[in-house]
């Protein structure tokens, strides 16, 4: 187990290093010059040059990279060019709506997909299974903003019962107001997450249910639900957990689109605005932080295998 953890930590560090190189050189090979962007078209050449000097844009790339990394390790990602605040402050301001949205959506997606997947696997080949599989297949083909647009059309425009734009905090406006603004974004995002989870739950349950020990459990006369939950699902859970971890990436990505559509001031909208304004430090910081979260979550899940599955704990293999 120790060797396994050490190996994984090492590979995470290497991945982070490559990632930082990539992000840095990506945002520095851009066509637009942030200094002239910031000052607008009225600025003189001297002003632009002075600002470039202040921002350190005239240093050699390698120096800029090492300065950036050294600061980043201290938790300082520099200042946003356009928002009058540091990157960390900007992220801190915008992270709550995104976390809420992602959390609610993931919970809803799990509530939909795991029972659906289990039932489909149990009734493999029957109408339920075909229905669930068809739902999953169609669902996989719909981008999240189409769900969003359709929900806006129906609940916002036709029925006029739900707000379609904006964000209200729980503290200030109360739970019901908060959720009335969040419900459409949550459903749009959950519907994009659910199909893949359903598919994976179904296929890993089908696989587990065909194993011998399930037959033994059946022969012993155990109740169907006990077999499904205690015997089968526990073993299928590993695969489901992996996909859950990987789906965090698409969740964040989906959040970017959904936040823009529903005008929620979260990280996703922050990313989109940073990109449209070519706000280098903000783009770098955001991509690095979001990827870091993604890497940490997946690392944690890898470690969890050891806890959940004793076979891995003993052999040290994944």
């Amino acid at each position, binding site marked *: 187990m120790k060797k396994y953890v050490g190996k994984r930590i090492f*590979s995470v560090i*290497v*991945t*982070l*290093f*490559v*990632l930082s190189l*990539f*992000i840095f050189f*990506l*945002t520095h*090979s*851009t*066509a637009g010059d942030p200094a002239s962007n910031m000052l607008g078209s009225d600025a003189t050449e001297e002003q632009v040059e002075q600002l470039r000097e202040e921002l350190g844009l005239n240093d050699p790339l390698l120096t800029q990279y090492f300065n950036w990394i050294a600061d980043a390790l201290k938790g300082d990602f520099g200042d946003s060019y356009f928002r009058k605040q540091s990157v960390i402050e900007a992220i801190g301001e915008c992270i709550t709506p995104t976390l809420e949205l992602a959390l609610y959506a993931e919970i809803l997606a799990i509530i939909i997909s795991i029972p659906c997947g289990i039932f489909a696997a149990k009734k493999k080949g029957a109408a339920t299974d075909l229905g669930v599989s068809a739902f999953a*297949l*169609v669902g*996989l*083909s*719909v*981008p*999240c*903003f*189409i769900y969003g*647009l*359709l929900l*806006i*059309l129906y609940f916002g*425009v036709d029925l006029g019962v739900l707000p379609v734009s904006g964000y209200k905090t729980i503290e200030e406006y109360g739970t019901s107001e908060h959720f009335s603004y969040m419900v459409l974004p949550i459903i749009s995002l959950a519907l994009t997450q659910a199909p893949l989870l359903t598919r994976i739950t179904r*296929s890993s349950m089908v696989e587990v249910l065909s194993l011998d020990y399930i037959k033994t459990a059946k022969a012993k006369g155990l109740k169907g639900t006990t077999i499904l939950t205690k015997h089968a699902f526990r073993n299928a859970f590993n695969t489901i957990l992996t996909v859950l971890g990987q789906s965090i*990436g*698409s969740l*964040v*990505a*989906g959040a*970017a*689109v959904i936040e*823009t*559509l529903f005008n929620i001031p979260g990280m996703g909208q922050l*990313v*989109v605005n*940073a*990109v*449209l304004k*070519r706000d280098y430090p903000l*783009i770098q910081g*955001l*991509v690095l932080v*979001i*990827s870091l979260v*993604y*890497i940490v979550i*997946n690392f944690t899940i890898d470690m969890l295998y050891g806890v959940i599955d004793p076979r891995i704990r003993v052999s040290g293999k994944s």
Partner: protein
Amino acid sequence: MKNTEKGIGKEAIRESRKLKLKIFMKNKLAVVGLVITILIVFLGVFADVICPEGPYVMDIAKRYIEPCGEYIFGTDKMGRDVFARIVYGIRISLLVGAVTTLVTFIFGMVLGMIAGYFKKVDNIIMRICEALMSIPPVLMAIALMSALEPSITSVIMSLCIVYTPQIARVARGATIAAKENTYIEAATAQGASSLRILLHHIAPNILSPVIVQGTYIFATAIILEASLSFLGAGIPAPAPSLGNILYEAKEGIFTANWLTIYPGIAMVLTVLGINILGDGLRDVLDPKSN
């Protein structure tokens, strides 16, 4: 592969192809996917025959006309024919998806085979791929778009960088598995060069899983392009893509629901057709994975 093709194996290969085709045609869903895809591709390819006046004709007097005989899908805020925009949008979306798939297929195959076959570079290539894959695709694609001029070529380039690692990973896994086969040992013993082994013995044997992965990339690339365009960081206006048509639909959502509904259906059908086709191909080419 070559030797067998010359001799008795030729018949067997033809038989196996026939069998695969038979399995595929028996799968009714896959055939439905094929039909949808053919229809969509037909619309995209013959866009200028179907709508010879093109997607750009504006007529401010004819803004927001509801679907009717002349404009079966209505008109948008600039009085452009929504049907024409959708047909040309399909063309651009398919073009982006197809070129992305082709380029990632080539680069991914080469990188994956090198990583899988030569242990020394395996670590380097796979660490780079892992790092790239740790950035969520939409995030990576818009970050790349911020570094490039907005154009179709840039969108395709961004998508290729996003998806090449995925193909490379599949190709690497398949290469490592194929390397264990005795025929590779035999070829090595005969003194075949690494290049020859990779091209003649490994490449044909890892095609199936890579092609299956490729169809999914085709579908997700279309979705990703649409998402990018929807965020305003994809195909620049006025060129239509399914994504930026829907982006413009957002403005008129309170007055003109046809701007959302028809392009939305076109988008879903395009991706759905390819996804079903991909599932069918997987059942035929890579039966173990199901």
